[in-house]
């Protein structure tokens, strides 16, 4: 049955190609661009400046319609589907239902990675020879991305923002992030992860005023396979742009301090 054998081989080959071509592979080059960015004094691609997203991923990283205070938006997840395990999908739906009380952002906790990148606040990239530092206006969050030759420190460390180690692949800053806790979400719609989260971010300059931001998410406790987000980051053009402040925790405590029936203080 040569035709059948040919057909089976063809299917196998197609499947292998699909796995190779379509499955996101952390840390491999996925983006090509003809733009050559200027260099820093240390000879690195210069990504410095103040950047911000222009999308609705902070509310929901998947396709969503509008509701009060929530702008509709295209998702930033490639293919839109997030490959939750059945149990995890049930938890996501539970999270969505109870998002007002469960979303850690509502307690002003640090937002985690990559969520902090697509919150609606500007952030500044600062480069040194052995480190890229990202300063976020939101809650003055700082991300130190070390490129000093040190690997991730050993052990499972439960950090909110994880441990970030960077490297350059051509003009792309590739950041490997591990050592997360299980207490942050990806958005206000209840998309979540466990402490087994592994994030690989890629910042690729596509022209003077844009970075392509691609993220690969792996978490075998929650997802059946790795999945990807991607979105542009826009350079803020205002002449007087500077990071100001959004001290979330301070505003929240001040608002709730004298309430006799504060949900913030009573829910715990």
């Amino acid at each position, binding site marked *: 049955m040569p035709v059948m054998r040919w057909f089976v081989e063809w299917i196998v080959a197609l499947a292998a190609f699909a796995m190779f071509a379509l499955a996101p592979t952390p840390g491999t080059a996925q983006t090509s661009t003809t733009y050559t960015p200027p260099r820093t004094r240390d000879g690195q691609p210069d990504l410095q400046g103040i950047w911000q997203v222009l999308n609705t991923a902070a509310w929901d990283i998947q396709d969503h319609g509008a509701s009060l205070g929530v702008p509709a938006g295209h998702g930033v997840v490639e293919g839109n589907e997030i490959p939750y395990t059945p149990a995890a999908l049930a938890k996501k739906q539970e999270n969505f239902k109870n998002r007002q009380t469960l979303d850690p952002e509502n307690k002003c906790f640090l937002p985690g990675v990559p969520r902090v990148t697509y919150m609606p606040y500007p952030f500044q990239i600062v480069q040194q020879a052995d480190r890229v530092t990202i300063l976020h206006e939101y809650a003055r969050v700082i991300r130190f991305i070390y490129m000093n030759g040190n690997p991730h420190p050993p052990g499972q460390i439960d950090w909110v923002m994880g441990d970030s180690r960077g490297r350059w692949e051509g003009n792309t800053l590739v950041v490997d992030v591990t050592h997360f806790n299980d207490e942050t979400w990806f958005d206000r719609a209840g998309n979540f992860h466990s402490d087994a989260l592994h994030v690989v971010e890629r910042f690729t300059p596509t022209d003077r005023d844009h970075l392509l931001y691609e993220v690969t998410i792996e978490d075998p406790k929650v997802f059946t396979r790795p999945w990807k987000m991607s979105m542009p980051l826009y350079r803020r053009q205002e002449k007087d742009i*500077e990071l100001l402040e959004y001290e979330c925790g301070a505003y929240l405590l001040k608002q709730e301090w004298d309430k006799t029936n504060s949900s913030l203080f009573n829910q715990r």
Partner: protein
Amino acid sequence: MRQFIAVVIAALAAVLFMLPVTGRVVAGQAFYKPDTPKFPQARTWVAQRAKLPPYKAPRTPDGVPDLQGNWNGPVGGGNDDLEEHDYIDVTTPPQESYVSDPPDGKVPYTPWALARRNEIRAGLARGWPGETGQRLYGDPAALCLVGMPRSSFGAQQIVQTRGQVILLTANTYRVIPTDGRAHMNSGAKFFFGNSRGRWEGETLVVDVTGVNGETWIDSAGNFYGPNTRMIERWTRVEPNTIDYQITIEDPSLYTRPWTMTYPKRRAGTGPGANPGGTTAASAAAVVTSDPYAKEFWENTCIEGNFDNVLEIKNLGFKWFNAVTP
């Protein structure tokens, strides 16, 4: 029980301000005994500084003095009480005043503002002399609120880029533009104010307006207000020492401008508060042997301390609002 609560509150304020919640405990955090010798601050440093030979700092590629590196805060018990005092408790050793001007080392409050400061201090419930036992205000830093000028009392890393000086700790930062831009409108208020820097010879001069007055200058209720202006002067006076001066002006609170002065020593070269939350240690041996010693590691505040914040609220402490006449 009251004594226990007082110690808890005092320790909490000190710990939240000085220690990382995760990662390694910072070396050098101490609990002091009553016979601890008085820590030198402004008076001693001003006398030492007067004897230093002139120093010209190396320049950055942009031609301005190079202040970059890890710099410790002042020696001793930190800024529990910025005025001169004897031993108060285990976290508050005897210490000279941080105030170099006026010469008596006191904050030159107007009479009503001094009365307000003393009222706040009497309600700290820390077990300090002169307290009424009433719980009035806890140190805002214990609620994870930080602002000017207190952030510089801890250790900081200075990074300079073209047109900016950036001050980093493990969990907060300041970006100081030095490109000649104007201040924002004075109605815009921030915990860290609105900083504008310029270079005057060897000195980085930072003019800070737009502060909100909602944090304290120390943990003993010394305050500023929403109309206060602060002028910092950062000068490298030796290879491993920055002379830090901050002049605080507010005619509605003080009878005259006043100045605090202390040295910030390069981490690993001398005494002083360690970089909060970083693994970098003051002991040079540790810095060279641990490959992670110069990294900042995560130092959250409210995430790990929400129960403590709740406890402070449940003890009856009020929210501290900015003081205005």
